C-alpha cells in the first residue's frame, strides 16, 4: 500500500495542518497505519488548536484531533465505510473501516504477506 485518501478538514485554519499540500511539515499529506481507516481515535498534532469546538458528534468532514507533542493521522475519507488506497502494483482498492488492525498495519509494510479482504 502506497497511498490513501486523507481528509483536509472543512474547518481548516492555518493551525490545522492535516491535508495541507503547500506545506513541507512532515505530518501534512502523510497518514499512518497506526489507527484503522476513519478511526474514531482523534488525530494528534502540535499544530491544532488547544481547545477546539466540541468533538461530538463525530464528523467525518472534520475529524477529531487533540493537541500533543506527538503526531498521528489516520487514513480518512468523506464517504462512509472505508478508504480507497493505491498499491505499489498500480491497483486501487477499497479498504473497509472494520478491517482488522493487524492486517491494516501489515499493509503498511512491504512483505507482510497478508491476505486483504476488500
Amino acid at each position: 500500500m502506497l497511498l490513501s485518501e486523507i481528509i483536509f478538514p472543512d474547518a481548516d485554519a492555518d493551525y490545522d495542518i492535516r491535508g495541507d499540500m503547500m506545506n513541507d511539515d512532515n505530518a501534512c499529506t502523510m497518514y499512518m497505519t497506526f489507527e484503522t481507516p476513519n478511526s474514531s481515535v482523534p488525530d494528534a498534532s502540535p499544530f491544532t488548536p488547544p481547545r477546539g469546538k466540541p468533538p461530538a458528534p463525530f464528523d467525518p468532514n472534520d475529524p477529531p484531533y487533540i493537541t500533543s507533542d506527538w503526531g498521528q493521522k489516520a487514513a480518512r475519507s468523506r464517504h462512509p465505510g472505508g478508504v480507497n488506497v493505491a498499491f505499489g502494483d498500480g491497483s486501487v482498492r477499497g479498504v473497509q473501516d472494520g478491517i482488522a488492525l493487524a492486517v491494516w498495519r501489515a499493509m503498511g509494510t512491504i512483505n507482510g504477506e497478508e491476505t486483504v479482504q476488500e
Partner: protein
Amino acid sequence: VTRPAIRQFLACVALAALGCSPAATEGVLTGAVTLDGAPVNSGQIRFVPVDGQSPTAGAVITAGRYETKLAPAEYSVEISSPKEGPTRSMYDASPEPTPSDAGAETIPARYNAKTELKLKVEAGDAERNFELTSK
C-alpha cells in the same frame, strides 16, 4: 438451537447481504475519566483490540467524559492528556514562541504508553468510568 440464536443468525445474514461491516454490532461506550478524583478536562481515550482482529476506537475527552462506539472485543485502553498551551500558528511570522511544556503528557505512563488497563467489551451499550491515580 435457540430462537434468539436463529434470529441473530438471520440478522447477520441480512447485514451481510447489505454489505455492512462488523461495525454493525458496535455499542456505545461512555463514561467519566478522573485523575486523583478530579475530572480529566481534555485529551483522548483509545481502545486497541488485544487480538488485532477489529479496528481501533477512541474519543476526545471533554470535561472529564468520553463517548465512543466499540465492537465487542478485549481492548487495551490508553488515556492521554497532553498539557494545554497557547495556540501555535503554522505560518506565524512572529518569533518562535518560548519553549514550553505544552503537549507533554500529564497522565502516568501506566495508563498510556505502558498501559495496564484492559477492558472486555460485550455487545450493547455500556458505561465505564476510569478512575486514575497519579501515585
